[in-house]
């Protein structure tokens, strides 16, 4: 884009605004100049008229003073005729003495008047007055009236009328000149303003157009403004900027090309990956299933161990009793007192013991038998049955268990799995209490019901957990117990049961002196309990016997 590309009226708004403002200011200045100058010049001319009138009157009075005092009116007439002849601007002179004859002298003649008939106001004998008057028969007249005094004594009055044609001509000439000067100024300055605005705005328009081209993606747009000022600097900077943009765009294109190549390579790799993904997923799923199977197996072993321990505790008392029965049988036989009746009584007693042990096994089998469908179960009963299973173990360590619950709270879910959760929590609490040795080891189970939730709190005074343990307590294979005493999957399985099978939450927190496990179950489970729903347990089934 060339600087010397000339258009007489460039259609850019900046030019029009600059030129418009320039022209408006010029016009305003011309009008203002005229509006100010005409009154000033008019006043000046009036002052000139006043000065002229004052001077002429003083001159006449001074020259005619002797004649006035001696009533030499011939001289007065002669002198004033000469004054009028020499001063073409004077229309008339009227000299009115207080008494006697007044003389009116004009350019065409003179006449004698009686003073009392002269057109003079009484105040004219005392005060000077002047101004432009409209006198019939003349266009306009500047009338100057001055008292005539000799030695402070009023002699009369003089009135001089001046022709204002020169004044009006001067005014008209002045207005004409002002208009002419204004027009000439406009004619001279407007082209100057035009070229100034053009000089000022054309490079801006050129740069603006080039910028628009650049904005539209044409990076070949350059400007040629050969000026040694800021606009020239701007144009050079613009060109540098465009060059830099072009260079950057080239770089970007190169980078894009590289990226496209890389994307193609990655796409190819991704296609390859996609082709093997199904196999990988299948592998991962298999691996996961294998891990789950391992976990289930470990869980089953752990449960089985716990169940065996519990059975052993349950069996200890009947086994002792059965042992005593057998000892009594042997003792009575040696003493010869084992008769049929004694034998029958001891056999019945022994069968009772055996039946009790058998019942214990059935109880454990039923307890760990996995549910196939979700059913309503009584929360209070479930809590107490679970506590009873561990009653022997807990009592052996002097751990007291209290349950604050209300009968009748129904939960929809898998009752045996829930009982497994309770057993895990109580087992953990038992281990903590055994390890911490509090003075009165205790476990408090509290049930609270709100409008939307049922919360079951398991609180112990086993000393609580450190921060690390608290953060990892529900992770699989995490345990703080000695090697061989804990698998690290009990609480993980418990959390899975509560979350996935019962849609609740299991959280752990420290409380003063111990820890608290909170199980939160949604209340709607109970409301929807009327319709039993077949659901598959989210956790692997408990070991069966």
């Amino acid at each position, binding site marked *: 884009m060339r600087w010397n590309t000339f258009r007489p009226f460039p259609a850019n708004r900046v030019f029009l605004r600059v030129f418009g403002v320039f022209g408006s200011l010029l016009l305003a200045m011309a009008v203002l100049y005229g509006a100010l100058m005409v009154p000033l010049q008019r006043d000046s001319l009036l002052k000139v008229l006043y000065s002229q009138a004052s001077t002429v009157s003083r001159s006449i009075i001074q020259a005619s003073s002797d004649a006035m005092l001696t009533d030499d009116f*011939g001289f007065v007439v*002669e002198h004033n005729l000469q004054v009028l002849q020499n001063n073409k601007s004077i229309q008339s002179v009227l000299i009115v003495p207080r008494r006697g004859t007044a003389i009116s002298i004009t350019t*065409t003649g003179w*006449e*004698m008047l009686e003073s009392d008939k002269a057109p003079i106001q009484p105040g004219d004998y005392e005060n000077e007055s002047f101004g432009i008057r409209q006198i019939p028969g003349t266009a306009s007249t500047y009338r100057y009236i001055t008292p005539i005094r000799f030695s402070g004594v009023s002699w009369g009055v003089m009135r001089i009328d001046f022709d204002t044609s020169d004044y009006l001509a001067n005014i008209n000439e002045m207005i004409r000149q002002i208009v002419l000067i204004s027009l000439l100024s406009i004619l001279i300055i407007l082209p100057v303003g035009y070229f100034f605005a053009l000089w000022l705005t054309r490079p801006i328009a050129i740069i603006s157009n080039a910028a628009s081209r650049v904005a539209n993606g044409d990076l070949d747009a350059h400007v040629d403004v050969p000026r040694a000022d800021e606009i020239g600097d701007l144009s050079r900077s613009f060109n540098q900027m465009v060059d830099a943009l072009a260079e950057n765009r080239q770089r970007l294109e190169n980078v894009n090309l590289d990226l496209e190549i890389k994307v193609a390579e990655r796409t190819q790799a991704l296609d390859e990956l996609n082709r093997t993904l199904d196999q990988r997923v299948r592998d991962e799923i298999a691996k996961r299933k294998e891990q789950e199977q391992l976990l289930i197996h470990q869980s089953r072993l752990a449960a089985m161990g716990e169940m065996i321990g519990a059975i052993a505790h349950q069996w200890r008392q009947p086994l002792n009793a059965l042992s005593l029965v057998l000892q009594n049988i042997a003792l009575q036989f040696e003493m010869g007192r084992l008769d049929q009746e004694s034998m029958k009584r001891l056999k019945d007693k022994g069968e009772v013991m055996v039946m009790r042990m058998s019942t214990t096994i059935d109880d454990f089998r039923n307890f760990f038998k996995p549910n196939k469908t979700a059913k309503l179960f009584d929360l209070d009963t479930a809590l107490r049955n679970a506590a009873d299973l561990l009653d022997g173990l807990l009592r052996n360590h002097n751990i007291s268990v209290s349950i604050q619950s209300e009968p009748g709270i129904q939960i929809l879910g898998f009752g045996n799995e829930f009982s497994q959760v309770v057993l895990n929590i109580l087992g953990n609490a038992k281990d903590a209490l055994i390890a911490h040795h509090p003075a009165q080891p205790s476990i408090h189970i509290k049930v609270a019901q709100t409008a939307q939730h049922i919360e079951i709190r398991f609180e112990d005074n086993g000393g609580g957990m450190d921060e690390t343990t608290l953060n990892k307590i529900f992770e699989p294979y995490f345990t703080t117990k000695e090697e061989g005493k804990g698998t690290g999957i009990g609480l993980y399985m418990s959390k899975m049961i509560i979350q996935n099978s019962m849609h609740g939450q299991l959280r752990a927190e420290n409380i003063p002196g111990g820890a608290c496990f909170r199980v939160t179950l949604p209340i709607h489970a109970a409301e929807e309990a009327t319709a039993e729903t077949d659901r598959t347990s989210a956790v692997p089934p408990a070991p069966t016997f």
Partner: protein
Amino acid sequence: MTSRIAHCLCRLVVVIAAILAFPVLAAETLRMGYFLPGLRNANQADVKAFLHLWSDEVAKPYGIDVSILTYDDMNALYRDAQRGIINMVVAPGMELAETFTADQLADGFAGSHRDQHGGIALIVRNDSGIEEFKDLKGKKVLRLINDRLGVVYLEIQCRKKARSSCADLLNISEEKRDTQSIHKVFFGQANAALVTQTALQAAADMNPQIRQRLRVIDEWKTGARNFGMMLASVPPSDREHVLSAAISIPTSARGKQILELFKVDSMGKVTPDDLNSYWMLQRQYRELIGSAPSKPTKKP
């Protein structure tokens, strides 16, 4: 005042007419003798500058050479005329009549006013009680200064009508301008004044009250008061050429401008006969004062 100035300007017009007419004089140079006291009211230096200005502006375009000599004394003017230093004279009629004889002068020009004659008038106030000239005895009478016609005319009247010299009969004062005399009579500061007819007419035009308050008790009429006369030594053919050229002056734009400027209505040819009234007045004057010297009385 106006009439006096007009009277003087008439003489200027005569001069300028002569200058414009001079081309016909071919190789001759117009050497004009100008009697300055005829312009009583004007500064003589201004008059000289004025004459030279007009000779340059008017004569030069015609390609001729004009020289102007001014005189304060008619005797000196007459001597130069006799020596051939000048070949044309411009002066009031009374001075010409007292200085030159009819055979010494030839044709010339004079400016004139329409409906007016170049005479003089003796004016008084209507309420002055002066009915005729002899009533002026002991009265204050005004006349123009350096006006030979006024002196001659008034002396003749004194001697004819009161049989006394004016010095004995009248209290004569001289004024510079006719209008001064007229106004003084008007306002009662003088009893009578001898003024030109043109001045009286101009004053009456300026103030009609003058016509009501003043009246003429005696007058002397003549054609013109100022004359530009070529001397008899100028060849007749040249004089005719000058006359024809001079008469055509008013027809030109410049000529009209000159006439208007000097408030002269027309420019006419005059001969020495037009001075006869002056010569007659001059003879009468000499007879009355008792001396009869041969003309001219003031020859060098």
